[in-house]
């Protein structure tokens, strides 16, 4: 080497060499098999002091909101909404914010484990023997003896197991979640089928309406897609280009949504269908003309007498409803009664008065997600009951459970825990040590949602078809493994049909196979000609969506020719109507996240506990005060909860939030509060949804006190604890 050959020349030459190699092999420098190793081991794409942001999908409920997670040095620091995702447009709910307390929860399942069922003691196994266990379970049983029970998220895993089932003959996976039970998704879908001739989740364009009548629908809390419906509510209220919209809430206990309503109508539980039909009739009468069959049979005076809403009020509301762009929404506890389907049909049919079907401010059928051909709803409680019966009868020898906690979420009267004794082998993929994982023989933990690949179909809430994409924002914190990777490896070990059923090397390859059909479609948020580029965009943007809306206008030719039923439901024996509601801050799986526990309930400001809401007058008659521990007894079970004198509830009704009452699920959830599902019976409505609000209960004093932490002054709502001299 000559003296003129400087260091710079050498580097130039080396660069040319590297470039040549790259051209010759067709790969970039990334394909080098060795790379420089820094002294500090840093996760990829991380630099000291710099944040890296990853788009992914929230898994706290099944809505599928897009997230952008700020990470720094391989740690997830903060979640924000993904501003480009059409579903949530950069916004999150409280649960989305607190998902980090799930990721870094001190009580995660850290390694694959084996245990005696119900025993908190366990021992660790390694992933090789875990995979072998799954392989043996697949191999040693007949396909019809193998069942999968899955949660409502994530969709990619559900698709994987569905494909596996189709190829091998094992039972198709069944999905369930307490939220879908409380939302009565089967009832909504069945009502749409009966009225419009097509099953699907109705979508309500609240933002475009002038007057909204909500029959118990808790759309600002946990219902279907709360972030998107909150945006709809803002559209209703904003008054820049139009008159400020008006919300009327019909429900016996004022929910958080009811608290935001301009008018709260405390009707008698179960009379929602009757009131909807009466309003329909009065509204049409106010316009004149012949009455259609749907509203012809109802007697408004009778409806007023039965519901406790005065005829004048019904008439006033009917005129309001008839005179503007109005919208009626069914939902909440009103669907969880024996007449739930009739309520859903009557309220949906009420939309025929303004004839808003398929119009802005009206009722649509939700757009199908990009890789979906028909609406797939989670199992109704009746289908779950049948599933549990099969378990108890020994029809399933192997049960795989992922993403759902049925021992906690199903009512005690459908005894999932007891039915497990009919199953020879129970394998859970739980991330957290929940009640169901405790009753499993093995727990082979999946990654947390923020450590996972995947996608979630947006079932409702966005006019555009959206497939929200998920990618790991941090590398797995513990010795966990993606369930698809476990199943793929086990299928290879099991051999036979399993070995050829899913020809993928890993989870990512499977995901890519599901994205390939989207590359053919036009009008998407991005396009690419090869799958690696497409998948890279999919990760970068947090999903793929159509740019144009695809809400479907329902076929309403026949809506008003139905016989609609205004009959009142049957209630199980008892003194008070029980209104169970999903805790707006905890929902079905939030109880193990400490900051969610410390968020005040939006209506009562209670934290960390279960309470029972009783009208102050009723409490006075019963002789109970705030924080008195009472026993609530139904035909089917009993729970204990502290009294909260709630000023906005009917005197004949009490309400208990769902979300607490865990016996496992980590230190923040365990042995805290009570689970109202213990009070539910197992009666279903006509669509197969549980009549969770169809029981009546008795209240017994226990003589004990239980302090309930709350943010508001403990002087009471009316300052009663200050004593008489302050009155």
């Amino acid at each position, binding site marked *: 080497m000559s003296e003129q050959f400087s260091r710079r020349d050498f580097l130039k030459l080396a660069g040319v060499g590297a470039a040549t190699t790259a051209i010759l092999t067709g790969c970039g420098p990334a394909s080098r098999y060795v790379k420089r190793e820094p002294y500090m081991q840093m996760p990829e794409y991380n630099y000291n002091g710099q944040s890296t942001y990853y788009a992914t999908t929230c898994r706290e409920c099944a809505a599928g909101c897009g997230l952008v997670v700020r990470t720094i040095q391989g*740690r997830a620091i903060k979640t924000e909404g993904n501003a480009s995702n059409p579903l949530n447009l950069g916004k999150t709910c409280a649960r989305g914010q607190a998902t980090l307390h799930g990721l870094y929860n001190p009580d995660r399942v850290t390694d694959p484990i084996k245990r005696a069922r119900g025993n908190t003691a366990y021992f660790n196994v390694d992933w090789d023997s875990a995979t072998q266990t799954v392989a043996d379970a697949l191999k040693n049983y007949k396909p019809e003896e193998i069942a999968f029970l899955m949660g409502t998220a994530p969709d990619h895993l559900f698709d994987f197991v569905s494909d596996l089932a189709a190829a091998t003959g094992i039972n198709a996976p069944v999905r369930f979640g307490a939220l879908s039970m409380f939302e009565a998704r089967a009832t909504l879908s069945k009502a749409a089928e009966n009225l419009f001739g097509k099953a699907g989740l109705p979508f309500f364009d609240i933002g475009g309406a002038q007057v909204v009548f909500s029959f118990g629908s808790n759309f600002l809390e946990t219902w279907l897609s709360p972030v998107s419906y*909150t945006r709809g*509510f803002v559209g209703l209220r904003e008054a820049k280009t139009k008159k400020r919209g008006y919300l009327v809430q019909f429900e016996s206990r004022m929910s958080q949504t009811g*608290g935001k309503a301009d008018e709260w109508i405390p009707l008698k539980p179960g009379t929602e269908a009757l009131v909807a039909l009466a309003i329909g009739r009065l509204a049409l009468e106010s316009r004149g003309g012949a009455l259609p069959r749907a509203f012809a049979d109802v007697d408004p005076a009778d409806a007023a007498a039965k519901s406790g809403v005065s005829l004048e009020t019904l008439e006033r509301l009917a005129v309001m409803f008839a005179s503007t762009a109005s919208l009626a929404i069914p939902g909440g506890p009103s669907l969880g009664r024996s007449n739930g389907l009739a309520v859903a049909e009557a309220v949906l049919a009420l939309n025929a008065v303004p004839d808003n079907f398929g119009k802005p401010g009206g009722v649509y059928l939700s757009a199908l997600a990009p890789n979906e051909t028909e609406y797939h709803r989670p199992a109704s409680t009746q289908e779950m009951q049948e599933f549990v019966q099969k378990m108890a009868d020994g029809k399933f020898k192997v049960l795989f459970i992922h993403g759902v906690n049925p021992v906690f979420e199903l009512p005690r009267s459908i005894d999932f825990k007891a039915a497990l004794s009919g199953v020879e082998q129970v394998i859970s993929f739980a991330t957290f040590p929940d009640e169901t994982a405790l009753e499993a023989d093995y727990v082979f933990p999946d990654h947390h949602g923020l450590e996972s690949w995947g996608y979630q179909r947006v079932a409702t809430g966005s006019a555009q078809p959206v497939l929200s994409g998920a990618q790991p924002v941090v590398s797995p914190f513990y010795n966990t493994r993606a369930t698809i990777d476990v199943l793929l490896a086990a299928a290879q070990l099991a051999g036979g049909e399993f070995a050829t059923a899913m020809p993928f090397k890993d989870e990512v390859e499977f995901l890519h196979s599901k994205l390939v059909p989207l590359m053919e479609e036009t009008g998407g948020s991005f396009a690419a000609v090869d799958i690696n580029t497409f998948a890279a965009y999919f990760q970068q943007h947090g999903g793929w969506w159509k740019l144009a809306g695809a809400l479907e206008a329902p076929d309403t030719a026949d809506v008003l020719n139905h016989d609609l039923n205004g009959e009142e439901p049957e209630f199980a024996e008892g003194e008070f109507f029980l209104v169970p509601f999903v805790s707006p801050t905890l929902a079905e799986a939030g109880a193990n996240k400490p900051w969610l526990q410390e968020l005040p309930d939006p*209506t009562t400001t209670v934290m960390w506990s279960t309470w029972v809401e009783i009208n102050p007058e009723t409490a006075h008659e019963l002789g109970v005060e705030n924080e008195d521990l009472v026993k609530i007894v139904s035909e089917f079970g009993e729970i204990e909860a502290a009294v909260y004198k709630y000023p906005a509830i009917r005197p004949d009704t009490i309400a208990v939030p769902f979300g607490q009452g865990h016996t496992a699920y980590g230190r923040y959830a365990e042995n805290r509060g009570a689970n109202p599902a213990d009070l539910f019976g197992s009666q279903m409505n006509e669509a197969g949804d549980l009549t969770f609000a169809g029981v009546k209960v008795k209240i017994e004093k226990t003589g004990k006190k239980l302090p309930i932490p709350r*943010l508001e002054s403990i002087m009471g709502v009316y300052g009663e604890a200050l004593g008489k001299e302050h009155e």
Partner: protein
Amino acid sequence: MATVSDLKITELKLSEAEGGKWGMVIDQDICTGCQACVAACAMENNIPFVGDEDSGYGRSMHWIRIERFWEGEYPEVKMTPNQPMLCQQCGSATCEPVCPAFATVHSQAEQLNLQVYNRCVGTRYCANNCPYQVRSFNWRDYQRPEPLPNQFNPDVTVRRRGVMEKCTFCIQRIHKAQDKAKSEGREVVDGEFTAACAQACPANAITFGRIDDPESLVSQLSKQAHGVKHLEELGTFPHITYFKGG
């Protein structure tokens, strides 16, 4: 007896206090009380959770809380519009003059009420003197078992027992945006960044920005006639404007 020049100084100070730099507008008509802002604030600012017992004693550390009250009795009962309550970043703050340790000081540069954690000796005079009741005190060293601390925001100090804390208007975000703008040789653009609560709010009920910039969204909104400022009559010059609901 006040001289003419003294009066001028007072007037000057008042106009400065009234003006301010950063401000917020909260629309109570669309706030749904969902607590997303509370959770977002806790996650952004490393706020500890205190557990059931201490929250029962009213020691929970919410820098922002949603107030709601009741009007009337059943069946004519009404929930008042949800009212997010946080530090109003007063131009003339009552918490400031009472601190013996100069831990509650006014930032000249940002026109914010600062809380200097390493000066705070925990007298709690400031919390006593805050008419908005928005200061929270670390009564204990609250436990965050491993691996929860992995989530800590490295831009925000972690406080320990005996220290008062409160909303900072996400000053770490302000500084980050200013640094970025400075390195790019420009001014911070309105809407370029926002506070954690405003960013999360699903209803977009919170607007944050420069109130000394007449073009910014927040100053346009704060000039609307139906805006009110809480306890303005105390002369605190709060920098948050509320739109009452209904």
